[in-house]
C-alpha cells in the first residue's frame, strides 16, 4: 500500500500534534512495516530527508518525500492527515486524526485563527469522506456530541509514546540536566504551553497556597513555551521565577524533558480540557507520580494511576500536591500504576491497531 502522511508539524512547531506525528513516522519506519510511505509538508516544499532523519532517526528506502502536487497525491492509496490539515487533492482514501475539539467546547481558550483553521479542516475532512480517528474515547464522545457524527464513523486510537520517555536513565546525566536549568533538589514539575486551556494560572495560585515549609523544601518547575492569550499568566510566572522556589524553562529537548520527569517528586497537569494529554502518559512512563484533572480525557489516560482534581479549584490542586509530596506510599503506588498504564501507549500496542485501520480504510490494498 502507498500511504501519504503530512509531516508539516514535525518540520515546524512543537507540542502534542508534533509529537504524535513524529512517533507515527518513527513507528511506520520500523522493519515490521512493509508499506510504502510518502511524506508531505502540506504548507511547505518537499520535506528534506536529512532534516526528517534528525527528528525521527534513520528512514528506510521505502519512505520517501514529495511535494504535495495533485499527481503525487492521486498516486496514493491512503492519506493520513495527523495535524488538522487536509490535502488539496485526493488520495483514494483519507484518515484524519482528531486530537481534540476544544475549539468548539472551549472556544475562549483559542485564538480566532486557530478556531477557523481547525473547524474548516474538520469540515473538509468530513466532506472528503475521511475516516476519523479520535485519540481518546473522551474525544470520540465529544465528536459525537458536538458534530453529531454517526458512532461508526469515528475510531479511537491513542498516540504512540516516544520510547525516550522511560523510567531508566543515567542518574548523573539527569542530575546534570536539572542543575543546568537551575533546578536544585526536590521539585514539582508541570509541562504545558502558556495557553488558557493549560490552566497554569491556577497552578501558580495553588503553589501560593502550599504551606511555606513545602515551598522552601521543593521547587515548582514549569516547562512552558509561550503560547497565546496568556500575557498576565506569563508575567506572573516570570515574576515568580525570580524567586528561588519557581523555575521556568521555556523549551527542552525530549531527552532532557525525560530526565526532568524521572527526577520529579510530583508531576502536575491541571489542564481544563484535553483530547488526550500526552504529558501525563510521558510522566507515567518516566515514573513520576501524577496529579491531573478530573475532566475530559485525563481520567481515561490516567486510568487510576493519578490523583484527580477539579482543575478550577486551586485549593484542591494544592491539597493533592501536598498529599503526594508528603506521602511516600502514595507516591510509590502512583509510580507503579503509572508504569503499567504507560505500557498501553507503546509502539507494540498501538501500531498493529493503526495498520489494521489503514488496511480496512484502504479497502484491502496490499
Amino acid at each position, binding site marked *: 500500500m502507498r500511504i501519504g502522511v503530512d509531516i508539516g508539524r514535525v518540520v515546524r512547531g512543537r507540542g502534542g500534534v508534533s509529537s504524535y506525528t513524529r512517533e507515527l513516522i518513527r513507528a511506520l519506519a520500523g522493519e515490521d512495516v512493509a508499506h510504502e510511505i510518502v511524506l508531505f509538508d502540506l504548507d511547505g516544499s518537499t520535506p528534506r530527508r536529512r532534516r526528517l532523519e534528525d527528528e525521527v532517526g534513520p528512514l528506510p528506502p521505502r519512505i520517501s518525500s514529495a511535494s504535495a502536487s495533485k499527481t503525487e497525491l492521486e498516486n496514493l492509496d491512503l492519506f493520513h492527515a495527523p495535524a488538522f490539515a487536509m490535502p488539496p487533492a485526493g488520495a483514494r482514501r483519507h484518515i484524519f486524526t482528531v486530537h481534540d475539539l476544544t475549539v468548539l467546547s472551549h472556544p475562549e481558550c483559542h*485564538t*480566532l485563527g486557530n478556531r*477557523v483553521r481547525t*473547524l474548516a479542516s474538520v*469540515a473538509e475532512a*468530513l*466532506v472528503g469522506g475521511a475516516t476519523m480517528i479520535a485519540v481518546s474515547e473522551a474525544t470520540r464522545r465529544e465528536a459525537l456530541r458536538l*458534530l*453529531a*457524527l454517526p458512532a461508526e464513523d469515528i475510531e479511537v486510537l491513542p498516540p504512540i509514546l516516544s520510547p525516550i520517555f522511560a523510567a531508566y536513565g543515567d542518574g548523573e546525566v539527569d542530575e546534570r540536566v536539572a542543575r543546568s536549568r537551575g533546578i536544585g533538589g526536590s521539585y514539582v514539575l508541570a509541562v504545558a504551553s502558556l495557553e488558557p486551556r493549560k490552566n497554569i494560572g491556577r497552578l501558580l495560585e495553588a503553589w501560593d497556597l502550599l504551606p511555606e515549609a513545602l515551598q522552601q523544601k521543593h521547587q515548582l518547575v514549569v516547562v512552558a513555551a509561550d503560547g497565546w492569550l496568556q500575557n498576565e499568566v506569563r508575567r506572573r510566572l516570570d515574576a515568580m521565577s525570580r524567586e528561588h522556589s519557581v523555575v521556568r524553562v521555556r523549551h527542552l529537548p525530549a531527552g532532557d524533558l525525560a530526565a526532568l520527569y524521572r527526577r520529579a517528586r510530583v508531576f502536575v497537569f491541571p489542564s481544563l480540557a484535553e483530547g488526550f494529554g500526552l504529558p501525563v502518559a510521558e510522566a507515567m512512563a518516566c515514573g513520576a507520580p501524577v496529579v491531573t484533572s478530573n475532566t475530559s480525557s485525563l481520567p481515561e489516560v490516567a486510568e487510576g494511576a493519578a490523583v484527580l482534581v477539579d482543575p478550577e479549584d486551586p485549593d484542591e490542586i494544592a491539597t493533592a500536591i501536598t498529599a503526594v509530596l508528603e506521602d511516600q506510599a502514595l507516591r510509590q503506588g502512583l509510580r507503579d500504576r503509572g508504569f503499567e498504564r504507560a505500557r498501553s501507549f507503546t509502539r507494540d500496542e498501538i501500531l498493529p491497531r493503526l495498520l489494521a485501520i489503514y488496511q480496512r480504510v484502504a479497502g484491502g490494498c496490499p
Partner: protein
Amino acid sequence: MMVMAVVIVLLVVLTVGGGIARRVLRRRRWVRRLERAEKGVAAAVADGRIASLTGEALLQHLEGLRRVAGGGEV
C-alpha cells in the same frame, strides 16, 4: 527638523495602517475559507456524503464562527 517630524509621522501612519490592513486581509481570508467549507458541507449533505444531522451541526458551527470572524469579535 520639520522634515524629520513629517517622516516620523508618515512612518507611524504607514506602520499602523499596514497592521490594520494585514488584520483585515487575514479576517477576509478566514471568512472566505469558512464560506468554502460551508458550501462543501451543504453539497455533501445534499448528495448524501454526510449525514444530515452532522451537516446541520457543522453548518451551525461554521456559520457562527464566520459571523465572529467577519464581525470583528475575537
